[in-house]
């Protein structure tokens, strides 16, 4: 269902709940295909009532999986080999 696809930006709000830096401009390396790009360029799927999935635009691998239930955040970053961000100002 391509129509449901959103940009990395769409996850900026929920990612900002537990990352202290602006995540969409951070670079990731995909565990599936090795692609390196900014999170903002990845694809976001919001599954109503369940969570959010960020997928690599090259290989569709789930980079980040998020859920929020019973007052807990669940964050699965297995699909990312590393996240890289320049020194944080201030």
């Amino acid at each position, binding site marked *: 269902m391509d129509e449901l696809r959103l940009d990395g930006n769409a996850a900026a709000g929920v990612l900002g709940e537990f990352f202290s*830096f602006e995540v969409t401009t951070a670079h990731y390396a995909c565990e599936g295909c090795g692609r390196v790009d900014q999170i903002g360029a990845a694809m976001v799927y919001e599954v109503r009532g369940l969570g959010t999935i960020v997928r690599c635009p090259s290989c569709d691998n789930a980079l980040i999986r998020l859920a929020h239930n019973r007052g807990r955040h669940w964050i699965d970053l297995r699909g990312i080999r590393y996240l890289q961000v320049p020194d944080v*100002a201030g």
Partner: protein
Amino acid sequence: MAVRLRRILWRLAEVTEVVAETPRTKSLLLEVPGWEGHKAGQHVDVRLTAEDGYQAQRSYSIASAPEDERLMLTVDRLGDGEVSPYLTDVLMAGDKLEFRGPIGGYFTWEVQDGGPLLLVGGGSGIAPLMAMIRHPAAAGSGVPARLLYSSRSYEEIIYREELEKLASRDGALEIFHALTRSRPGGWAGYARRIDAEMLREVSWPANENPLAFVCGPTSFVEGVADALVRLGHDPARVKTERFGPTGG
């Protein structure tokens, strides 16, 4: 250099005015105590809480320039929407609205990022692009910009008059409209959906290294972005903001 995020917490804005832009869209003008400013292209998340505690949340692009005093959100009324009908039909001046933001760093533009700018919008996708257009107008810069804006009809062109004013006042801004469903008599603009040929005619040549921002329904955005890349634009300089299936 990355920016340390302030904790983006939910807070309340006060609605100062609700403006009808077109038959289906309204702009909300908000006052936020202690607003720290934003970058053109960023959005806010709006949250509604029903009496039974049920919450619904949606993202809306900030349509106002960083220089503007009040925040503007432009809402497309979706008939079966959970959030938009409340914002367009019920919300009034004086009401409070829960939101968090500004959010986003990837789909943003400020004058120092340079140009030339190519902005392509479909329907309510014009909102973040409008912040980008209002920003150099307010900041007094002359960054060359071209807007290609697709709407269903003349009456549904959001910000139509303001766009005309900004284009005639500022030689750096050129506006091209594409009307896809109906057009007024004597219409001289494009009369079809945006396609590769139209983009080729309107966009800066790839060798001028423009920055492109494309916003609107997902299928619209993907078609335009693919066409721009095939026309030779650097994919890293084509930024997209998909609104999903219904365009907001």
